[in-house]
Every structure is written in C-alpha cells, then in structure tokens.
C-alpha cells in the first residue's frame, strides 16, 4: 500500500511539473527564464537530444521525404515557373532582367518551397505512422516523466524546479509575481529618489561647512560621504545601503541614518494605524447608514460633513484643535510626549479626518452600487428581510473596493504625516525628512522617503494577497488561468 501511494504521489508530482512546464513554455519570457534557471540540466540534456535527434524516426522520415522530392525532379518544374514569373514581373515594371539577381531569387524561393513541402509531407506521413515530432521541449518533458531523471537533476536544477512548483499553484504564482513586481517597484523608487537628489544643484558640503570652508575641507567632506564618486557607483552604494539597512552617517550630527529612521518610524506608524482604526470604526457605519437611507436628511448631513472633512487642511485643523482643546479648554496637551497617552488623541484625529471622510464617501457609493445589483433584488424577491440582505449579501461585497481604497489612502496618510507631525511637534519620520531637507541631507531624505515607500508597497502587497483569498471573483479568475 505504502509504495503504491508513494509512487502515485511521485507520478502526480512529475505530472504537475510537466503540466506547468508545458504551460510556461508557451510564453517566451518564461521559456528563457526556465532555460536560464535550469542551465546545467538543459546543457546536458541538449547534448543527449542532439545525439538522439540523429536516429529519431521523425528526422529520418524528413530525410526520406526530402530525398524523394529531389529525386522526383519537381525542382526543374518549379525553377521554370519562378523564372517565368520573374521575367514577367520585370517586363511589367519595364526593367532589365539581371541574370545573377534572377538566379538568386529563384534559388531562394525554391528552397523556401522545398522545405515547406517537405515539412507538410513529413508531418502527414508521421501522423499516419503515429510518430510524434521530436523537439527539444517534448524531449525534455518525456525526461521529466522519469523519477530517476528527477532525482538525478534535482540538486543542479533546484531553481528551475522551484519556479515550476511555484507556478503549479495559481495562488503561489500570484503571490510570487506580486512580490517580484514590488521588488522592481521598490528598486525603481530607490533609483528615482536617488536620481532626483543627485541632480540637486545644491552643494550640501558648502551649505554645511559654511562659506569659509576651504577646498580641501569640502573635498574631504565629499570623500567621506562618497559624493565624489561617479553617478553609477553612488547609485549602487545607495541601493546596497537601502537593502542592507546601512545608509551610513547623515551629513549633520554624524548620526547613523538607518538607526535614526528606525527610532522615528514607530511613532509615525502608531499614529497612522490608530487613525486608520478610527476611520474604519467611524466611516464604514456612516457610509452604510447613508447608503441605506439615500437622499435623507441624515445622508445629506453625513456627506456634507464628510466633504468638509475632506477639505480641511491637516495643519489648520491641528491648530484649531490646539487653540480650542489645549489653550482655551486645557483638556489635552498641545504637543506630543511619549509618556502622556492623552497627547496622541489630537494627532490621531487630525491625521484620520481626511481618511475617515474618503472612506465614508467610498463606502456610501460602493454600497449604493451593490444595493442596486440584480442579486440583491433576487435576495429580496426570495423573501429575505432587509437586514439579512444588507448584512449577509451587501456589506461583504461592498467592502472589497473599500479595502483597496484604504490601502491606497494609508500610503497617502504616511506621506502626509509630515504636516501633522510638525504641528504637534512629534519627532516622527515625516518631520525628520522635513528637518533634513534644508541642507539637503541626502542620505536622510532618501532613506526616509524610500522606507516609507517600501512600507506602503508592502501594505499594498498584503492587501492584494488577502484579496486573492477573499474576493470570489479573483479566486475564480485565477483558477481559470
């Protein structure tokens, strides 16, 4: 029993490999990727293939047919035909017939025709005989069927097999492709931000060392921070630094950039996450209520308030909050201090207002769209009551686009945190970047911007992956692939 199940598993495994291989080989990019990843195996199998090709039945049929064609003497017939055509053509265009050109043309056309005819005929014959045309890919697929071959080549071809395994499952394939894409995006972002800062006309050394700095001092500064290197090597250093979390020292204060960023990141993230929670808790119920009572006074008021929330600049709202709650009423502290949890309330509300407003508007429109769908009408017609329809059929589906929007807005919130942080005097990543930009302190700005972008990309990847599991539409679409 045991051996049987094992062998069936093995057969299943190689079948999966072959199926995936066949699927992937159809697309050129994947084909070359497979060849490159499994280069050692492909090199050896290619040699075997070459030797096998010679005594392959299909190629012998091909040879035979070709010989028979040449022996039958149709070549002369074709040659005359082409010659006549050529002469007529030249006569039509009133041109001189050039002997040499004509012969070359005839020869080319003849070869074309011959190979085409031979191929057709050989295919016909091999079909009758039941012989399959042997190409490298079919040969490789037949090898994959053999467990012995798999065992033998598993170690050298591990990369190729891994790729095949990844692509055998649509979910894993999706996650893998999504991750690869975000790696490219992150690299692109790093190059973009570095290039922008590299092109800067400002001379950080002169700004920092003052006008009295000697040429030697400036040169020493540039050398210390690698600013005298050519563009590409600076870029390479920057990319390496970002990947290894080692961006070197900042221009001012001689602090380690990566450590500073790591110290300042948590508070920004905490505020952003709390704002997000606030937005979700307030906005989604508001959106649902608005949608279910479309065009009522409540709906109008909610949407009016949401629009105002969308139109308030963060810093102004922060100032008004400080004016009312800190200065006049003295309920909450005006500036943030880590020891006092009350001091986080105002920044969270200020940062979350815009998000809350957008999510409420989005929830409303998404719910309205869903409520008017046919399947909701069907559910109602079947006699379900309003609440069942709303909570079991509408809300879940309406949430799908909202989650995407939240993911995108979360990014915007991290980016916009700089303003809120400045108003409440929070030493987060946003105010760090703003403080550093006057010099401009290139490693600090670059690190800050890129790590925020990376965080946002990862959040979006996570959301996309969650989708693949939760959205039935995406699920069924992936199964069709």
């Amino acid at each position, binding site marked *: 029993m045991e051996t049987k199940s094992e062998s069936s598993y093995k057969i299943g495994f190689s079948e999966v490999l072959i199926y995936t291989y066949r699927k992937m080989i159809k697309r050129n990019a994947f084909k070359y990727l497979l060849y490159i990843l499994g280069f050692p195996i492909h090199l050896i199998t290619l040699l075997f293939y070459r030797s096998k090709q010679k005594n392959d039945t299909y190629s012998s049929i091909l040879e035979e047919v070709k010989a028979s064609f040449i022996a039958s003497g149709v070549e002369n017939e074709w040659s005359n035909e082409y010659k006549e055509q050529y002469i007529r053509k030249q006569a039509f265009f009133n041109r001189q017939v050039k002997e040499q050109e004509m012969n070359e043309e005839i020869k080319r056309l003849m070869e074309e025709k011959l190979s085409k005819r031979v191929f057709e005929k050989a295919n016909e014959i091999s079909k009758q005989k039941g012989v399959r045309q042997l190409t490298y890919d079919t040969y490789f697929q037949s090898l994959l069927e053999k467990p012995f071959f798999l065992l033998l080549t598993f170690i050298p071809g591990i990369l190729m097999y891994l790729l095949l395994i990844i692509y055998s499952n649509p979910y894993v394939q999706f996650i893998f492709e999504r991750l690869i*894409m975000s790696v*490219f*995006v*992150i690299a*692109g*972002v790093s190059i*973009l*931000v570095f290039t*922008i*800062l590299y*092109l*800067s*006309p*400002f001379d950080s050394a002169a700004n920092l060392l003052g006008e009295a700095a000697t040429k030697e001092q400036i040169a020493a500064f540039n050398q210390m921070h690698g600013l005298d290197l050519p563009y590409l090597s600076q870029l390479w250093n920057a990319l390496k630094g970002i990947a290894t979390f080692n961006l070197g020292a900042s221009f001012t204060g001689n602090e380690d950039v990566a450590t500073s960023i790591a110290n300042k990141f948590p508070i920004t993230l905490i505020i952003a996450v709390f704002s997000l929670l606030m937005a979700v808790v307030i906005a989604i119920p508001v959106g649902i209520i608005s949608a279910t009572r479309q065009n009522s006074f409540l709906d109008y008021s909610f949407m009016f308030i949401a*629009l*105002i929330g*969308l*139109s*308030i*600049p*963060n*810093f*102004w709202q922060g*100032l*008004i909050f*400080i*004016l009312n709650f800190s*200065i006049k009423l003295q309920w909450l502290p005006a500036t943030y201090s880590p020891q006092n949890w009350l001091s986080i309330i105002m920044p969270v509300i200020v940062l979350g207002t815009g998000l809350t407003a957008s999510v409420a508007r989005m929830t409303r429109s998404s719910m309205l769209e869903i409520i008017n769908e046919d399947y909701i009408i069907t559910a109602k017609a079947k006699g379900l009551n309003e609440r069942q329809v709303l909570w079991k059929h509408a809300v879940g589906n309406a949430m799908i686009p909202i989650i995407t929007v939240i993911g995108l807005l979360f*990014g*915007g919130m*991290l*980016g*916009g945190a*700089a*303003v809120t942080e*400045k*108003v409440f005097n929070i030493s987060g990543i946003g105010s760090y*970047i*703003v403080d*550093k*930009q*006057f010099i*401009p302190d290139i490693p600090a*700005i*670059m690190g800050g*911007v890129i790590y*925020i*972008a990376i965080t*946002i*990309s990862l959040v979006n990847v996570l959301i996309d992956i969650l989708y693949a599991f939760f959205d039935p539409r995406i699920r069924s679409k992936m199964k069709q692939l």
Partner: protein
Amino acid sequence: MISQKKHALKVSREYTQANFAWILSTIVTMILLWNSFSFKEGNIKTSVFYVFLIYAVFTSFQLFLTWKMKRDLLKYGEIQTTTRKLGYIQLFSIATANIFTAAFAFNLIKKKKTPEYVFAVYMVLTQLFILAISSFNLFKPYVTDSFIPAMGALMLIMVFQIIMLVLVAKYVQAGAAPSWMLIPAILLIITSLTGNLFNLLLGVSLIVKIRSHDQSRIIKWNTMWDKITRNSTAILGMFFIILLFSLSVCSVYTFDYDMAVENNYGALLQKPSLEYPFGTDDFGRDLFSRIIFGARISLLVGFASTLIPVVIGGFLGALAGYYSKRADNIIMRLLDILYAVPGILLAIAIIAAFGANTLNLILALSVGAIPTYARTMRANVLMVSNYEFVESARALGSSDFSIIFKQIVPNSLAPMIVKATLTIGGAVIATSSLSFLGLGVEPHIPEWGNILKIGSTYLESHSYLAIIPGLAIIGLVLSFNFLGDGLRDALDPRMD
C-alpha cells in the same frame, strides 16, 4: 390624488433648494449669534448683533417661504404665483450678502429656468460681490490710483449685466434665443476679461442657441447645464471659485499690493476693524489684502499643477490604452514606480533637491499626480477604443495619431475633467501645507499657507490670524469638491 401631490413635493427642485437655503442661512445666523457675545467680558458686541438680527429676519422669511411652498405643493401640486411674487421681497437679502437666500429668491421668481437665466443671475451676484469686497478699500487711508476707474468700469459692466439678466429672463427660451442677442453675447464674452467667467458662459451659451439650428445639440447643452445648475452645492461651489478668480484678476487694479507686503509699524497686530476687516499681522500688513492676493497663488498653483499632469498623464494613458500590451506594460509599470511614492513625499524630495519656489512647487506637485491621470485615461481609452466610430475611423484610413486624438481622447475626457476638478482641491491643500512647512511658495509672497504659518505663532493672542486663512482654504477646496461632485453627477453616464 394625495400621493400625487406628495410626489410633487418630492420632485420639486425649488422646494429642495428652499430647504437648502434656510438650513445654510440658519447656520450662518447662528454663527453670527455666537460671535455677537464676547464670552470673556460677558457683553454683546452691538455691530455683530445687528448683523445677526438682519440675518435672522431674512432667515425667518426664508422659513416662511419654505413653509408656504410646501403648502402650495401639497394643496395644488405646484407653487402658486403669489408665492413666487413673495420671492421679490427675499431678493433684498442680497444687500446682506446672504448668497443662499438671494440665489434662492432668483430661482423662485422665475418659473421656467433656462441655463442662461441661472448664468445671468450668478453673473450679477458675482459682480455684486466683487464690487462689495473691493469697496472695503474705501475705509483705508488711501487707495490705488487705478481704484476709481476700475470700480467705475466694474459698475458699468454690472449695469450691462443687470440689463442682460432682464433681457435673458424675458426673451431666451429653452430651445432658442433671439438673433439680435448676438452682439450683446459677444460683448459679454469680452467683459469676461474681468475674470467673471459667468459672463463667458452666458455669452457662449447664447451664441450656441443663436447660431445652432441643430435642436439635439441645444438639448444636449441644456441637459448638461441643467444637471449642474440644479445642484445647489455645485453651482455655489462654481460661484465661489469664479468669485475668487475674478477677484484675483480685478485685485490688480482695485487692491494695493503694498498693503499686503509692505511693513507698517504703525499698525502691528490690529484687531479686525473697518479699515482692516481681518486685522493686521505682526508686520502691520493688512490680512484682508493678503488673503485676496493669496487667492491668486492658490488658484494658479492649483490649476497649473492639475493641468500639467492631466496633459502628460492623459497623453501617456492614451498611448498605453490604445497600443499593444507591450507599450501598455512598459508605460504603466514605469508609472507604478511614481505611484508608489505618496505625492506630498515626492514633492518634498523634489523641493529638497531643487529648492523651494513657486515653479518648483508646481512641478513637484505635478509629477506625483501623473500616474492617477494616466490610469483614468487608460481605463477610458480601453473602453472607448472598442466603439464602432473608432472602427469606422480606422476603416476610413485615419492614422493612429488622429484616431487617438480626434476620436478617442475627446470621448474619454469627461471622467478626466471630473477627476481634475476633484483633485484641484487636493492641490490647493498640498500647496498651503508645503508653504506651511516652509517648502512651498517663497515666504515673502502672500500665500494662504504662508499667512497661516505666521498666524500659527500668534495662536494664543491673535487667533484670527490663523483662523481666517484656514477658512479661505477650506472655502476654496470645498467649492472645488462641490463642483467636482456636481460635474460627476452631470457627466457620468452611469447616473442616467
């Protein structure tokens, strides 16, 4: 019968507008009441209290009108002529600058409203507000040399506009306009040089009706503007934007720029008064003039940093949507990189590299917005390029270039316009935010973010320095959002 009348109440646009007007008017009245008490000293500020009383009168009258309309609709199924006549009384609320009740009154007195009538009404209202706001300069110790001639010209234009309003109300119908209106229409277009774009709209609208014999075109034009103008918030937003735009144009001649930028040590940190309606800042500069001149920068940066990405992003999106999968992939993947960096962060990085000034600010804000427009355009082009007219253009042998830019792009502009309107507000906020951080417009230029930055340091003692510019920003952004929502409802075919 009863249900029919209830239906009449429900579909009556004027009744909805009446409700809208009294609610907003009440809010303004309440704010005035709140401000007429000074809580510290416990007494009443008489001047504000009088304004409150006048507002309260008109608000109560508005409530009465609303009640009367409701009764009319429930009793007769339509608004009676006597009720409409009462609207003429409510017209006087224009003297108190209550735009909500004034606009409503104009709506009430005319039974059959053409888009031209609405344009004409708002044209006159805008001109009136410009004149009223500019005439605050009369309380100043001196005015600019061009003040008197400029005000004279503006008043002449207003007389012309009022005549046009009467003529339009009397002669223009839904389907046609009399042909003798061509010359006034052209004059209106010329007077729109003052920045009052309602002139332009009215002029163009009249010319369309005079010149066009194609009824379907007129109907299309009417329905589109009808959808926008019946949306009270959208037209109000449009009014405020055009008012600010026109003020920024006229302020060149009616306001003294020196008041906004030159230090005046004799008038440091003055409280709001008639001479300085919004008070003065720590250099003695008149906040009122600064706010007016700040509108110019905000509008300029807002429009420019929307127009540039609309053109670039639209172009790239059109190419990506029209051409093969490969071109699409390359363009969109490259734009994904831009999309991964939040707009304001990218702007900070660009400004950090190239310095803080208005031009860099516009460019920095533009770059970050390209991908969103490209995505919108691409989605539209993908949809439109499957239509038959594209197929027929291709069959007629048009080149790809002319198919894209003559057939596809004009037919996929509507969502772009809506998106652009909705994002101008975002650009205005971004501009002032960056200025507040010291990364935007140069600090010596009166820009709302810069004004707020100064105000934030006087939060405790002179809070109006921070509150007023913020209200200006909110007003402008809210207007763009209202207008954008209205445009979306009017242009989005899904809503039909």
